[in-house]
């Protein structure tokens, strides 16, 4: 045992170990959440979902899908801009991977505890906007172009509410580091959602918009634009986008849990158990939020682009600003 702890205290070995874990987590989380989506959405529609892949439950369905995507032909349209076309899914996946680095799974279980944790997380998640725009522009297809432009407008518009919504929580905690925010909630004894319910609501809505999920899926808009900016992608390039969406759902939900719902802590759990129970609690809370995202996706239709924009600029941003004002007043005078 001491040999292992000595081995992993070496910087380079632990770095490689962390990279491996993050790299493996993305497909794993993507597949688990993807499987949950297809089965839960089927139950909401009074049907069964995949049943045959891997036995009675169909648990191997997404593994089979992954293998299928890998062995497909790599199609690049004639009019497409080849380097940009190839780079776009990589950028989107990179931003997803970068988000996982600052999520605290336990008291000391964080890949890198940056002192500007939340600032870094929001900055990295906005890289995907560039990736989406690149995908739409370089596909050489009018439908993809329209999807990409809609995505640019939507993602930029919803960055602002996303950022403004977390400021309330950061002000209450007094620090931008993610594990510091959880420790502040432990010290206070209650999760911040009780005071920051407005911020939590705005963060979840803006997160749905950042993920381009229904009700904000104008960029994809399956019934109008045949997958929008994703139309020309097939094979493992599509797999990157697909995994990136599900892993991003997980990452943004985990950030919401950390900022608002208490992270890896539950009231009543003793301190000694926390390093072992922490990841389980975090995963359970995150999956609750992911379930809510799946539930919203299969119930609502999509907003039109101008309705989206007016929701962001005319409602969410003023409410978020008011939230910051009230939190600041609360913090100064109480």
């Amino acid at each position, binding site marked *: 045992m001491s040999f292992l702890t000595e081995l992993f205290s070496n910087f380079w070995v632990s770095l490689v170990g962390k990279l491996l874990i993050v790299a493996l987590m993305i497909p794993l989380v993507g597949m688990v959440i993807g499987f949950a989506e297809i089965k839960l959405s089927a139950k909401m529609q009074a049907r069964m979902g995949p049943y045959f892949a891997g036995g009675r439950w169909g648990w191997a369905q997404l593994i089979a899908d992954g293998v299928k995507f890998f062995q497909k032909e790599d199609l690049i349209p004639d009019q497409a801009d080849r380097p940009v076309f190839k780079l776009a899914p990589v950028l989107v996946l990179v931003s997803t991977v970068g988000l996982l680095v600052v999520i605290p799974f336990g008291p000391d279980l964080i890949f890198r505890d940056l002192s500007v944790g939340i600032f870094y997380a929001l900055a990295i998640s906005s890289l995907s906007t560039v990736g989406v725009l690149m995908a739409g522009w370089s596909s050489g297809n009018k439908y993809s172009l329209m999807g990409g432009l809609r995505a640019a407008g939507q993602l930029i518009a919803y960055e602002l509410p996303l950022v403004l919504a977390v400021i309330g929580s950061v002000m209450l905690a007094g620090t931008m580091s993610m594990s510091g925010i959880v420790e502040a909630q432990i010290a206070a004894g209650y999760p911040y959602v009780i005071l920051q319910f407005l911020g939590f609501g705005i963060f979840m809505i803006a997160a749905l918009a950042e993920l381009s999920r229904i009700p904000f899926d104008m960029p994809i808009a399956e*019934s109008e634009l045949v997958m929008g900016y994703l139309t020309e992608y097939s094979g493992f390039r599509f797999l990157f986008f697909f995994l990136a969406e599900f892993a991003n759902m997980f990452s943004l939900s985990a950030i919401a849990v950390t900022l608002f719902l208490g992270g890896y802590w539950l009231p009543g759990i003793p301190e000694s158990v926390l390093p072992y129970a922490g990841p389980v609690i975090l995963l359970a809370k995150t999956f609750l939020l992911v379930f809510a995202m799946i539930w919203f996706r299969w119930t*609502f239709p999509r907003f039109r682009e101008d309705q989206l924009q007016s929701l962001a600029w005319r409602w969410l941003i003023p409410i978020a600003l008011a939230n910051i004002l009230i939190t600041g007043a609360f913090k100064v005078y109480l």
Partner: protein
Amino acid sequence: MVLDQDLVRHLSEASVSVELETPEMTLNIGPQHPSTHGVLRLVARVDGERAFDVQPVIGYMHRGYEKISEVRTYPQVTTLVNRIDWVSGYANEVPFIVAAEKLLGVEVPERAQFIRLILTEMARISSHLIFMASYPLELGAATPLFFALRERERVLDLLEGVTGGRFHPNFNRIGGVKPAYGSGSATRKVIQDLPAGFFAETRVAMDKVLYAVDELDALVADNEIIVARTKGVGILPPDVAASFGVSGPNLRASGVKFDLRKVEDYLPYHLFDFEIPVGENGDCWDRWHVRLLEIRQSVRIVQQAIDGIPSGPLQAKVPKIIKVPLGETYVRAENPKGEMGYYLVSNGNQGPYRLKIRTASFSNISILPWILEGVLIPDIIAIMGSLDFVLGDVDR
């Protein structure tokens, strides 16, 4: 240095105006598209998201119905005619057979008329349920599709139990409904009357359809997003609708109270008590809601018809080989999509000499260039979906 007051005022009033040149783009919506209900092509000239000139191009599905009817006999044309508006199969046969019966001058027995009416109303429920399923899907909600199709299966099972076919029943014959198999032989005469258990199953199915319609109402009708997408979108004033020849639920949603079931007498609708839903504004929400209310009224008609169906023969006494005498007639009926009419010219043969088919969807989509001027692209999809047309009906 003191600034010259005139200069200051001049500078403060100066403004720079830059006209952004945004070139227009020609976007082809279709013929292969998830939302055009078939192979309809819309050549849309758009400026960003706003379309300012939309021209539909049809004909991709033309199958030559009117030409082929010239060389077929009446039972054969009945088979083919099911496939014009393939979503509501049975409702296409009835006006054609009624036209042939008018020329022949034969009286259809009561039981056959009741059976025709029940099956036509079931076809109407089936067609409107498909609309309930596909319209929210075009707006983005995927769940109403499954709820509506789940109930449609019950109605199709009922149709299959009586006629043997789910979508294309082919159950009408001149003089009534199909009476029997082996009509010429003495050994085996299988009467094609209603099978045992039909009434009980129909009552159960109608209750389930009403429950599902209430579920769809709760899921879709009051949803704020649906209301934002469909209220005030695609408003069709009643005079414009009448001038373009729009008919059916689209016309009723614009406020015109006109239903061919109350006007024409091709089926005994006067014996039943039902209402005609009428809309107020003529927007997409009204067109959706009128069809929902029509499902409830159709269920009412079916329930009354089952309770009061008379017994009797299924077909009038007609000769084996039917030759319809010389003449021409036009019969129109209330298809679920609108008004469907058959202009039948006969010259004494076993088949029509010329059959002109007036379909509802062809006239319904003639308003597309008028109604799609200056709308956003998502609204194009919403408006097209709310008109509820099928390409087989447009192109024949």
